[in-house]
């Protein structure tokens, strides 16, 4: 590997941060799509020059932009996300039925095998697929057509499908997470889905262990252990060892188990990272100290990583798509904050340095290892 490229989506555009393999000196490029909310930017695992971005604004709706030269230039591609068939209704905040309405793309998941293949998770919750590099989009209707869908309801941030994980060893197996419906799994490439929420317990819904209704914030997987998933739920850090059939809590000694991000070390499937946030009412780190917590035991036993991170008067948040790991050795870990900082660690989290300090609020962070 010759270097890394960090892809940052912010409230006012996208940025690319590039460095060599040492990851000490960085070149910052952007803003791309200045003024647009960029919920997510992600590169193709097959072709690192192929990058997809999802800018949107309240004025002009959704755009999808594609780069074929590593983020230097961009081309708008297809932006029509039309629900297929009967629109249907889900529950609104007041408990009444409310028709599905497309609002924006939250997450783009490029294919592991085809640079033209990409999945999109959207609000109101649904999953779309493009096979032509984002030129056109087709809904995978089995998810929104699930028998429980009429009982799904939005969280405070909207009813968003924000997480898509595809099993690299079995492309037919896809996991998604929806706020606030929960986690779902498909074993037939997205044609049919079932909830995988057994073991989750959420006191903020009428039936705390209901099959759906849980506010899942993020799910992470190590590609070598695709049956092991880690989840940052609204409250609780959870783990499954059987592809979501059963979850158990692994919050252990965390100072608070509320948070948004969770990610897994690139080379150690049992090494996990979270950023604890004080509470659902106070979205900032406890005690004004920005701490990443690392478990080397697959959860339950956590250590605070503070070297290089602000340990006083820090009241930023780290949003659900704003952490990523690179595949270099040692593993690099990256996260962005609502205060506009992007921190990097070139040693698995032992120490941190800010790549940039003053971007707009960071919505997403992804990283590519460059050949």
């Amino acid at each position: 590997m010759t270097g890394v490229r960090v892809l940052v989506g912010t409230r006012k555009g996208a940025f690319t941060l590039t460095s060599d393999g040492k990851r000490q000196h960085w070149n910052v490029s952007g803003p791309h799509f200045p003024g647009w909310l960029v919920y997510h930017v992600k590169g193709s695992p097959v072709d690192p020059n192929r990058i997809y971005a999802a800018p949107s604004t309240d004025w002009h709706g959704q755009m999808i932009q594609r780069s074929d030269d590593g983020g230097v230039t961009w081309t708008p591609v297809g932006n029509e996300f039309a629900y297929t068939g009967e629109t249907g209704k889900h529950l609104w905040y007041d408990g009444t039925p409310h028709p599905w309405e497309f609002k924006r793309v939250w997450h783009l998941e490029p294919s592991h095998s085809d640079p033209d293949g990409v999945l999109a998770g959207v609000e109101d919750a649904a999953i779309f697929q493009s096979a032509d590099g984002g030129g056109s989009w087709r809904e995978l209707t089995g998810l929104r057509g699930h028998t429980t869908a009429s009982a799904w309801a939005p969280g405070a941030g909207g009813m968003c499908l924000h997480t898509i994980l595809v099993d690299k060893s079995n492309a037919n197996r896809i996991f998604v997470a929806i706020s606030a419906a929960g986690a779902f799994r498909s074993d037939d490439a997205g044609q049919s889905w079932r909830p995988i929420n057994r073991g989750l317990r959420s006191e903020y819904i009428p039936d705390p262990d209901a099959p759906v209704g849980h506010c899942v914030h993020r799910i992470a997987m190590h590609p070598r252990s695709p049956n092991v998933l880690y989840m940052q739920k609204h409250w609780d850090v959870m783990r499954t060892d059987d592809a979501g059939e059963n979850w158990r809590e692994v919050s252990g000694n965390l100072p608070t188990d509320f948070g948004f991000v969770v990610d897994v070390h690139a080379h150690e499937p049992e090494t996990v990272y979270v950023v604890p946030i004080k509470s659902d009412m106070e979205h900032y780190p406890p005690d004004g100290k920005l701490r990443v917590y690392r478990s080397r035991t697959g959860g339950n036993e956590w250590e605070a990583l503070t070297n290089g991170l602000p340990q006083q008067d820090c009241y930023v948040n780290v949003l659900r798509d704003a952490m990523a790991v690179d595949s270099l050795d040692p593993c690099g870990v990256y996260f962005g904050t609502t205060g506009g900082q992007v921190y990097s660690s070139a040693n698995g989290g032992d120490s941190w340095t800010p790549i940039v300090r003053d971007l707009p609020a960071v919505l997403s962070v992804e990283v590519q290892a460059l050949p």
Partner: protein
Amino acid sequence: MIRVALPGHLRRLIGVDNEIEIDIDGTATPQSVVDAIEARYPVLRGTIREHGTQKRRAYLRYYACEKDLSHDSPDAPLPEAVTSGKEPFLVIGAISGG
């Protein structure tokens, strides 16, 4: 020839700095003007009107000759001053943000 002033985000998408000029076959209306804009610049589909319903996006307004035409019928003829090119047809983004 009709002059159209687009919001900055849309001008950047189509690579222009100023007003655009379009020709309309038949009666010039907000609908036919946006039809012509989208035909010339397909990248703008969905950014002024919603896909599917073709309704004006909620945070945009159509102005001309110091009047808000947004709530008129999209098929209402535009003022002669617009169709003659004397005044522009304005697509305006609502004031928003902080």
